[in-house]
């Protein structure tokens, strides 16, 4: 599976834009998970702009591929990807965590393109497996269900119940992706609860396994292609995407302090400029910096 140069450039641009929009919305909302959103940027770019068959004009199209975000705190990155894909205008991202706006954690009913409600960790793979089985009942062989999991949430037993279920029912239309960014809320995953040997665990549960550098778009596209077209043999497949929490902004990388933290507008401005330099784009700072929004005034106690 070779990626045309202009397609690769498009995916890179989308990964950049996902990160940029995450900083914008999290800073504006004064709430959100930057680290786990940044680590998924390439994965989401590869999914929504290359691997997944979706149609933003028909969000309920029965043959669409589904993405279940089990690590639902990564919602900013998915909301950004959906906006970029054309599900709604990017302006809507500024409604993140506002009354009637985009929910802090994904909710099935809050916006088109979201396929499940989440928040408590460890539940996503079960609902994704149910969807995959439902597609089989509905004689819908084309659609795939992708489930994006965090590494820390693999500590939840519910994930492994679903892992057994999916292999028992031969759900080869289910592709689990682990955003293995090595860091959870309070430190490195291996310090809190060792999940290694991770690939062996999935294999032992009856899954096929692929591993890829989760920030290498060509490697991700290749792995997602193999997962869908080359590997299926009556088993679900786990793609372990090796990533860096906070990838893209140096101070946030592998830094659990940036698991949940909204940058101040000035810090956001610096982050966005750093991102632009890293991607070789014209420097573009935080869009709301000069404008005093009512919310900023409120949080300063004025």
């Amino acid at each position, binding site marked *: 599976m070779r990626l045309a140069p202009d397609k690769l450039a498009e995916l890179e641009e989308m990964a950049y834009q996902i990160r940029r929009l995450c900083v914008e919305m999290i800073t504006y909302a004064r709430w959100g998970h930057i680290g786990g959103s940044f680590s998924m940027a390439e994965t989401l770019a590869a999914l929504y702009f290359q691997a997944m068959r979706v149609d933003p004009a028909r969000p309920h199209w029965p043959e669409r591929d589904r993405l279940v975000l089990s690590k639902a705190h990564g919602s900013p990155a998915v909301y950004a990807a959906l906006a970029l894909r054309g599900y709604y205008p990017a302006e809507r991202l500024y409604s993140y965590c506002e009354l009637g706006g985009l929910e802090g954690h994904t*909710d*099935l009913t809050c916006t088109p393109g979201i396929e*499940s409600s989440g928040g408590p960790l460890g539940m996503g793979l*079960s*609902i994704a497996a*149910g*969807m995959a089985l*439902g597609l089989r009942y509905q004689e819908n062989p084309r659609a795939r269900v992708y489930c994006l999991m965090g590494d820390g949430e693999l500590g939840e037993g519910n994930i492994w*119940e679903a892992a057994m*279920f999916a292999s028992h029912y031969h759900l080869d239309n289910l592709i689990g992706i682990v955003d293995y960014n090595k860091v959870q809320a309070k430190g490195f995953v291996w310090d809190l609860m060792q999940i290694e040997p991770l690939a062996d665990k999935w294999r032992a549960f009856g899954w096929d396994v692929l591993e890829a550098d989760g920030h290498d778009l060509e490697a991700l596209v290749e792995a997602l292609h193999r997962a869908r077209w080359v590997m299926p043999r009556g088993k679900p497949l786990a793609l372990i995407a090796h990533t860096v929490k906070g990838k893209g902004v140096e101070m946030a990388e592998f830094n659990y302090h940036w698991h949940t933290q909204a940058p101040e507008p000035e810090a956001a401005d610096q982050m966005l400029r750093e991102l632009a330099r890293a991607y070789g784009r014209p420097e573009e700072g935080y869009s709301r910096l000069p404008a005093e929004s009512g919310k900023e005034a409120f949080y300063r106690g004025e």
Partner: protein
Amino acid sequence: MSPMEQTRFAYGEALLELGQERSDIVVLDADLYNSTRTVLFGKAFPERFLDLGIAEADMVSTGAGLAASGLVAFCNSFAMFLTGRCYDQIRIQVAYPSLNVKLAGSSAGLTQGPDGASHQSLEDVALMRILPHMTVLVPADDVETKQATKAAAAHQGPVYLRLGRYPTPTISPEGYQFQIGKGVELRPGRDIAIIACGIMVAKALEAAELLAKQGLQARVINMASVKPLDRALVEQAGREAKLVVTAEEHSIIGGLGSAVAEVLAEGNYAPLWRIGTRDEFGQSASADELLDHYGLTGPKVAAQIAAAWAKLG
């Protein structure tokens, strides 16, 4: 007296009929299909029956996934496991997005019997009733259970259906039509209004007979639809009777008694006395011993009501 039947048996039969009537019904169980009576559906429609083994939380989430793909998923276990173990999954993945998942809690209440407090759900109605979007049905007999099961399948959105393994007589009148959100008067009476659900409806009728012998006229209302509650009927009972009583095989905290109290507290109505278990767990014994111990037999219900009546002065 009419023949005694356990509501779980009527549920199993209704589920089988639903399987024959509709191709979009899927049934999930967690290694209890004989007890939950999903065995009938499972044998008739093995391709639409999933036994997930001992993994209740996974069962509920999987059911949510099946519902999200357009099917109607019936998830089955003992009431306590289903509502207790899976509360988080039910809350986030079923109730919050209002998916078409039907939760059938079997062997509910004290009359689960010898398994003891661990298995006796006295909190399940409270747990489910507090969830937005959730409908909570506690049918009283075989006839109503069949109808409630069909109504749950026809309803868009999540439903909790409470079922038991205690033989109880058919008390639904001829031609009865169960409706979500509606209670039904089974016996008129001007002094006291007893609002009951589940097996306690038959006990309330028995109590009303005993009270009549003491000169107290008790109206009996079957309130199988605990949520949405038939608010108009509760208000009418609260206006017309001098004492309102609730009776349930459940804690008086959070169940039918609480639901009725929430209505009566917001107006000028008759005082309320709640009958059920108090702030306590169950224990191992036979079903009838337990009902007697916790004051839920017909005579004990009648005695509690007579005592509450005497206090009115």
